[in-house]
């Protein structure tokens, strides 16, 4: 089996954090989101990460720092959101270019999966398999691919972002496509290259058996500022993760807080914040904020803000 991680999005909703780095490379609990995924994949399995030209350098650097063999980076030619190949399109392009004839474990690079990948892989019986999670709320389910389960592990229906969901069970961006189903994928990708969930509708339409793996462990789809902060709170809990190179003096820390390398924080209050590297904060009260690299903040209170790299907000007096 070969793992393929989709990391070609432009993550416009997380601007400005994604101005110079891809969403899967955003830090979460001390390491990039995508690293959490990589660590779950069995060590012998080859992994291909697909990204776009705009973020290729960031991924190359990330790969250089990873202690793992069998990793490969595929770069789509596009550097624009409206020129993307689409999720399915990029898989199909890679399968065609590399003449892949193997079962595929496909993962979306901006998801955090709490379950054991080995258990998921064991559930694969040769049919297309998708990991499904019960979000427990029909309203929430509208934003995802909704899975309708039959007897046992069989999937009887799939609805991509339905207006009236029939179930609260949703697909989580972790699927296995057996090599026998690759011709269908290649064919479908020509018609709907951006519809990854749609391939399961197509399988069912062709009377193919589709299985689902239902898990109750945490799953986080990091697509917005709110969901990024939520994932951070879920993973960190009520504690502060402070890099050993950071300095914190006379500062109150509440909730979930991470502080990156070479930060200097003095006389401040931080509640549920992510402070990236090389940030200086003095006399500030920050709540629900993500502060990108190299920011300098002094004498200012902020709530629910994402600050771009190098922002200087210095209030005297």
């Amino acid at each position, binding site marked *: 089996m070969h793992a393929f991680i989709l990391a070609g999005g*432009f*993550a*416009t909703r997380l*601007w*400005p954090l*994604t*101005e110079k780095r891809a969403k899967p490379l955003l830090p979460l609990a001390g390491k990039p989101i995508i690293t959490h995924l990589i660590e779950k994949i069995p060590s012998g399995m080859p992994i291909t990460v697909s990204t776009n030209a705009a973020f290729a350098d960031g991924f190359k650097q990330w790969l250089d720092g990873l202690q793992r063999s069998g990793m490969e980076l595929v770069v789509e030619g596009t550097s*624009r*959101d*409206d020129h993307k190949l689409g999720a399915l399109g990029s898989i199909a392009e890679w399968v065609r270019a590399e003449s892949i004839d193997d079962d595929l474990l496909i993962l979306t690079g901006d998801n955090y999966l709490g379950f054991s990948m080995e258990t998921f892989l064991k559930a694969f019986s040769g049919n297309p398999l998708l990991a499904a999670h019960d979000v427990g709320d029909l309203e929430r389910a509208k934003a995802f691919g909704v899975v309708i389960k039959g007897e046992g592990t069989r999937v009887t229906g799939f609805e991509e972002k339905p207006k009236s969901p029939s179930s609260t069970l949703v697909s989580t961006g972790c699927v296995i496509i057996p090599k026998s189903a690759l011709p269908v994928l290649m064919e479908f990708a020509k018609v709907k290259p951006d519809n990854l969930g749609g391939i399961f509708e197509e399988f069912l339409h062709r009377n193919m058996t589709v299985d689902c793996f239902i898990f109750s462990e945490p799953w986080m789809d990091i697509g917005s500022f709110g969901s990024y902060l939520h994932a951070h709170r879920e993973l960190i809990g009520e504690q502060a993760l402070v890099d050993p190179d950071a300095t914190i003096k006379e500062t109150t820390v509440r909730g979930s807080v991470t502080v990156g390398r070479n930060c200097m924080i003095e006389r401040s209050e931080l509640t549920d914040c992510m402070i990236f590297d090389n940030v200086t904060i003095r006399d500030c009260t920050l709540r629900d904020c993500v502060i990108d690299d190299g920011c300098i903040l002094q004498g200012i209170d*902020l709530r*629910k*803000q*994402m*600050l*771009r790299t*190098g*922002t*200087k*907000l210095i209030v005297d007096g």
Partner: protein
Amino acid sequence: MRRPLLLFLWLATDYLLFLGVYAFAYFQRVGWILSSDLPFRNFMTAVALSGVPWLAGLVITRTFSLTRRQRTPRNAAYIGCAAILGVALVTTVYFFLFQRVFSRELLLTAFVLSAFATWAWHMVFGLLMRMTLRSGLPSFPTLIVGVTRESRHLIDLLQKRQSVLKPVAILDASGIKEREIAGVPVKGKLDKLEEILREFRITHIIQCSDLEQSINLLSACRARGITYMLLPSVMGIVERDERVESLEGKAVTVVSPESGWWNWFFR
């Protein structure tokens, strides 16, 4: 370079206009002769010396500011005030130099002529400046952030009135389907910001929505020396009388409740 050159030209022509208007007023009141009671040379010396502080008065009231619309009554009022200042300066300087005062009618004529002639010239020059600064590569390429009813109206207005701030690109945080608005291309979402700032050499950003991104837009502006502007409607201010004032030395944006015009003096 066009703007500094035009500004220099504007100041120079204003100064010459001031001299010309006072000379015309002199001959208008004294007659087309050179009076020995009020020597033309002495009079024009006082006018020449007064012209510089008169120009300073216009500068202080920001009459030459880039975005000032010359035809507005408020601008006319500022020019009127400068004309009063001009008359007062000429009288005072003349008295200091020659220990004499002169015709009140002459002063009145000079005041009326300098006020109206300056206003008229400013309207003409303002128009010429707009046309010059927008022609070819615009001197002040402007990025509009956020597509709203207000921003559409603003783009329309900037285009129709040939504003010196020429909208060259539009970004919208949530993305819109339209490819252009009033001839200005929609270039995508905010992730394109850096690219657009570089590509179009943006000098001004006007934020028309997405208040939560103000800090980041300001950060980009500070980093690149770009002027940042914000439509008050982004903050829900639609009264049209918003102003920045000082509260114990701290700048605050003020929106007052509706009241009679006379209350303006006591706000």
